[in-house]
């Protein structure tokens, strides 16, 4: 049973560029959440996707956008990269329950380390 997978593992970009990160959820999960983790800090919630729609969003600008595909996999896109976007980007998957009201425990992938120069 495959866990959450993310690609690529590492990425180096320059300021102003755009980046796309990918995530495949754990088998049986239908909800994907994205987090940004700066060095030495806890993960910060970016947004969550369920049924191919953004359901919840944290305090991140519109430069951060995402998508969920029919097979539940997801992409995170960041436009106009800033130096401060350098971080570990984590994807977590879970299963919606109670007719979509709440989510079960989130399981994390290994993350994508993004460096913006």
């Amino acid at each position, binding site marked *: 049973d495959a866990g959450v997978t993310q690609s690529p593992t590492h990425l180096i970009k320059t300021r102003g560029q755009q980046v796309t990160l990918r995530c495949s959820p754990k088998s049986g999960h239908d909800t994907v959440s994205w987090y940004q983790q700066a060095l030495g800090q806890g*993960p910060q919630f970016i947004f969550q996707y369920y049924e191919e729609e953004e359901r919840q969003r944290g305090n991140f600008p519109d430069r951060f956008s995402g998508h969920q595909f029919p097979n539940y996999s997801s992409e995170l896109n960041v436009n106009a990269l800033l130096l401060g976007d350098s971080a570990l980007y984590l994807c977590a998957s879970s299963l919606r329950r109670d007719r979509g009201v709440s989510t079960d425990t989130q399981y994390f992938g290994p993350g994508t380390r993004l460096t913006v120069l």
Partner: protein
Amino acid sequence: GESVGLHLPTLSVQEGDNSIINCAYSNSASDYFIWYKQESGKGPQFIIDIRSNMDKRQGQRVTVLLNKTVKHLSLQIAATQPGDSAVYFCAENKVNNDMRFGAGTRLTVKP
């Protein structure tokens, strides 16, 4: 504002001793609380969770205690091993809302 935070940024224990990692939260509307372990270069790994209607939950070598009166959460690790060395995060999850993490506590186990 509402937040989830940890009392101590670092904790050092002797191998074989018990470890206690503490967490304070300020939002009493949380649905449940989760403890994650993160090793260097890896994503957070689920350890144990507890619903807001519970006070205690036990797993394998781990126990989570929830004190809603003082809004305090703790993770107890019995017979700490070198493999337990990592950063531990508490997180709160609210129904239909995002999950909020604390800053983390680094646990170091001395042989």
